[in-house]
């Protein structure tokens, strides 16, 4: 990360001036660094453990790296074999669902914000409330719907293998439940967009659709980035839909999180290096996305 400081004009207190570069300041940094260590420890411990042999796990401190003899990438290769298919599946449904969520969210937010009509708040409330639905309240009808009514694997049996039918279910499900939050994110931006600018475009002769395409869409590209990042992590990390719609770890459509949930618990006993490797491997895409776009992410999660 850069050396940029957080921009906050004159919030340092100058009270420490008399004591030189204050004791306060040192204490502050000690606290911050200490907390950072606390926040990093579980991940760090996971990382070092993942490259330990099972002997080394017993012999070394959980946060200490293994010695040269205790190091192995076996867990990683094993985890990779177990998870590769799941990661591919996750990617296949996460990417389209993310894009769809963003597109629908942007459209809905535009329709509800930049076009002025009565009652939009009521509709918007429906969207917002959708963010806050506990999935337990819809999961049974959802599974019923997919398995007894939609039955994509039967209906689209000629077009799609069961694996892709399941993935299509996941795409649609994730899109539907992702729309509300995306709408909110876009709306928070669109509300700050200059109303006069939209009116200027109207007077310039642009229709509602053209205004969206030529003014609003280009201006929301940064927000699209935020929504992509946010939604990508959300969908990639999601578990409940995988658990209920896919059903089994062995299903060819199993997602990474689903496979991870069962990883390392097999009859051979609890294999912590394998679990850690699997966890890190599963987290890799979101961690990467997040570390690359940390600032956008931080700005974006203000729900």
């Amino acid at each position, binding site marked *: 990360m850069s050396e940029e400081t957080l921009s*906050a004009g004159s919030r340092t207190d100058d009270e420490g001036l008399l004591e030189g570069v204050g004791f306060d300041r040192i204490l502050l940094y000690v606290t911050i660094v200490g*907390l950072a260590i606390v926040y990093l420890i579980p991940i760090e411990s996971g990382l070092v453990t993942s490259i330990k042999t099972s002997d080394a796990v017993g012999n070394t401190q959980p946060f200490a790296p293994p010695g040269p003899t205790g190091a192995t990438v076996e867990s990683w290769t094993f985890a990779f074999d177990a998870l590769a298919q799941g990661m591919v599946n996750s990617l296949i449904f996460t990417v389209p669902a993310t894009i769809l969520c963003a597109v*629908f969210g942007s459209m809905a937010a535009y329709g509800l914000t930049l076009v002025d009509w009565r009652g939009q708040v009521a509709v918007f409330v429906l969207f917002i409330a959708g963010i806050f639905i506990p999935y337990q309240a819809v999961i*049974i009808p959802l599974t019923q719907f997919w398995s007894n009514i939609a039955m994509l694997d039967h209906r689209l049996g000629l077009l799609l293998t069961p694996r892709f039918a399941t993935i299509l279910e996941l795409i649609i499900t994730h899109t*539907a439940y992702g729309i509300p939050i995306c709408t909110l994110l876009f709306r928070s931006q669109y509300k700050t967009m200059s109303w006069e600018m939209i009116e200027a475009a109207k007077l310039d002769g642009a229709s509602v659709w053209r205004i969206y395409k030529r003014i609003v869409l280009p201006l929301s590209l940064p927000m699209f980035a935020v929504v992509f990042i946010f939604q990508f992590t959300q969908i990639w990390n999601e578990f409940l839909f995988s658990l209920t719609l896919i059903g089994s770890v062995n299903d060819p459509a199993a997602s990474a999180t689903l496979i991870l949930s069962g990883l390392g618990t097999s009859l051979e006993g609890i294999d912590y290096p394998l679990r850690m490797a699997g966890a890190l491997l599963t987290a890799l895409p979101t961690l990467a996305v997040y570390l690359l776009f940390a600032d956008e992410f931080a700005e974006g*999660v203000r729900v």
Partner: protein
Amino acid sequence: MKRLVAFLRSIRDKRRVQTDGGTVTERSSTRSWLDSDFVQSMPFWGPPLVLMGFFVYAAIGWNFLLSLTNYSGFGEPDYSNLTLSNYLRMLEDPAIWDATRNTLVLLVAFTVACLAIGLVLAILLDREIRFGRSFRTIYLLPFSLSFIVTAKFWQWMYNSQDGIINQFFGLFGFTPDWLADPRLVLGSVIIALIWQFSGYAMVIYLAALRSIPSEQYEAARVDGAGTLRMYWRVIVPQLKPAMVSATVTLVLFALKAFDFLYAIFGGYRPRQGADILATKMMREGFNSSEWAYSSAIGLTLFVLSLAVIAPYLYTEYKRGNL
């Protein structure tokens, strides 16, 4: 979408030709209806609303209907005989009460702790820290992880022999089994969840802190307040809206803790003391095929979250934030 409007227009045009002599106002009112923002904006919010509405609101309605049946096992639900018996059954099920109590404890403890820790983190980072962004990234890092990943990490953290936590407490000769002891297990779960989400609260607070004009800080200082007093009396009270919105979101994360519990306990049944309504619901449904009963629990959960969200939405609406 455009075609739809064009089509409607063409109908209108035809009708105008047919009637041939509709008054100006009639014509123009149809026209202005088609040109109205409502109609014009519909293609934008309509499809997302239908898709989302079906999966959210229709599903909840259906769920309610299911909760009135006695659907279980492998058959089809029978909608002909709807009763509240599942809700009565909940009242009599001691496990429900335990789960409700645990859900509330989890909700409150987790939310309050996240808010408090998030606030401290935000204030620390608000004080012109070098590498402030990097620290923010670190504190927020766990938020990018899946519940499942977090569960794996903390399973290891909490491992009664080799885990870091007991390595540490072992120094004091105190090595409880964090995930097994019924008195500790809920706390252990909450701590792991705090680790994952306090960074989120921090980000919300940071944004709010940023939006407080620096004049507020300066005015307080000129008024003679020291740093702590300044934050406590002037700055923190102004974070109330941020706190409310963070609370709502944290509550929802807490309601989704099922994923975490499932992963860390390796199944639908958490250790005693850590069962929440979400796990109970999933267990009744997907483990025992008691679908109707499970639906009733799900709906209860929905009502519970509604109790949190409705006031929030209402005040947001009142404040004109929607």
